[in-house]
């Protein structure tokens, strides 16, 4: 069975909000109608978004790190938001595991938002229905798009490739490998929702270089300086005189 999902690499996300704007642009322009905003240019703007990037400071300055944290619906494998919906408007697709809201059935009772521990659903105050990330279901299967474009809008927009998209149930997919090899984890695992989306942790890449490794035999840039000058007649490593 397929379970489509995103993997978000917190190690490379720079918090540019490109995914947020790209998501909003795609999903406000589709046949499902706009993602409504109120007071967009006023003092207190508010609106409906599928995806938001939040920023956290970890640790105490100066030993602190900034974490940019994109969050959208995690398309849980066991979504608590679905069974509580009284109308059946919220459902999880069997074929690809995407959790969707049928905007024509939703009565806007907001019960599902109470049941989602992640705050991933947002009520559209003008359309009066519940909205949430669709994993760009109207895009990823669109045969009129080039194959390379059949990805969620946010994934296409990310300049650092912090967002990966694929099938978490296929052990050979790019995202399954990333989860496996780079320590991918789920949010709030304590509730047993089994989110399909995973996050890759911040990781430090360090390279230890020992002094003797700097003193290279062929000294190509002539900067090492520590080695005694070889005799003119000595063969150099590349067999071309170093001088």
């Amino acid at each position, binding site marked *: 069975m397929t379970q489509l999902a995103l993997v978000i690499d917190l190690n490379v996300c720079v918090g540019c909000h490109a995914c947020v704007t790209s998501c909003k642009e795609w999903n406000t322009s589709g046949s499902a109608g706009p993602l409504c905003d109120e007071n967009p240019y006023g003092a*207190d703007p508010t609106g409906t978004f599928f995806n938001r990037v939040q920023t956290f400071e970890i640790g105490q300055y100066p030993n602190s790190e900034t974490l940019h944290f994109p969050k959208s619906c995690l398309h849980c494998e066991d979504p608590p938001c679905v*069974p509580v919906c*009284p109308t059946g408007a919220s459902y999880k697709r069997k074929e690809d595991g995407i959790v969707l809201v049928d905007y024509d059935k939703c009565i806007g009772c907001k019960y599902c938002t*109470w049941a989602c521990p992640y705050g991933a659903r947002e009520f559209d105050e003008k359309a009066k229905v519940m909205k949430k990330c669709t994993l760009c279901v109207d895009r990823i299967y669109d045969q009129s798009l080039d194959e390379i474009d059949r990805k969620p809008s946010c994934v296409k927009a990310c300049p650092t490739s912090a967002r990966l998209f694929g099938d978490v149930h296929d052990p050979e997919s790019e995202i399954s490998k990333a989860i496996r090899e780079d320590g991918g984890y789920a949010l709030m695992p304590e509730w047993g929702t089994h989110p399909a989306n995973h996050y890759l942790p911040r990781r430090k890449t360090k390279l230890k270089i020992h002094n003797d490794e700097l003193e290279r035999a062929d000294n190509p840039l002539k900067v090492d300086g520590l080695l005694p000058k070889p005799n003119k007649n000595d063969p150099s490593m590349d067999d071309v005189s170093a001088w």
Partner: protein
Amino acid sequence: MKPAYSVIFLTTLIGAGQGLFLALFTQQSYALFGQLPMQEDGFYGYGSVLVLLLLCGGLVASFFHLGHPERAWRTATQWRTSWLSREVIVLPAFMGVVFLYATTHLLGWRPVLITLPSGLEIDLSIALGVAGTLLAFTLFICTAMIYACLRFLREWNSPLTVINYILLGGASGFTLATAFAAVIAPLQANFFGGWAIIITLLAFVGRSASLFRNSRLKPISTIQTAIGIKHPQIVQRSKGAMGGTFNTREFFHGKSEKFMRRIKPGFILFSFMLPLLLLFLGLSSASALLLGGAFIVQYSGLLAERWFFFAEAKHPQNHYYQGKA
């Protein structure tokens, strides 16, 4: 959570309605077994009209909660999984039975259905009363389970939620029945008043138990599990939006700590202490005015109680909006 007035009125109004119906039928059951005098049909009939008014008030209030009330019929479809859907089915069913119960009494049309071996005659109104009683309890369970089934809203996720919905609804219903009896059938006021005092006391114990339990809850989700970073010190610097969002409006009650500390003794006083006092004084002086006052005071106390019930629950999504909390 942000308490929604529509839901506060829905749950308190139908709770009082269910309680009043249970009170009326309890009296009728006692009377059936000869423990109390059977009342005129009008007593049960007009009493159930009052029940219907309360239930209708609750139903109307609930529609204000919906974005698309015209699609409300769809809510009856997911009864297999959703307690909200079950409530939406049971509420009209209960109203229907109460309506029939009222009609049989007001029209005086109570054909005997069966005669028990002991000679006891079970008429149509008794059968409807039994059905109504079962539905009233089912409705209490459905309403409370809407909240109690959400496992990460831990203030609600407890059998106490169900017990308290039954006891609080029952208390206000029996208090109302006492006032109603004091006007229409004064001799029955002591019967209803006695039960009202007992149920109010039980409700006080139940609600105190849940307040005690909730004050000692240790959070399961933390900011660390929410974002998966195991550092003890994490501070949110940006919520991903400049103005408010649905998430900052729906999940925070927006009142100060001080207000939250004050409302607690306030609703205990108004839901339990004052009504007990007024019931006691009203019964001993046979004053319908005091008994009516007891219901009004208790109902306003329950409005505050329900406000607190919603406001007290801390949703784990708030970890992603801690800058607001």
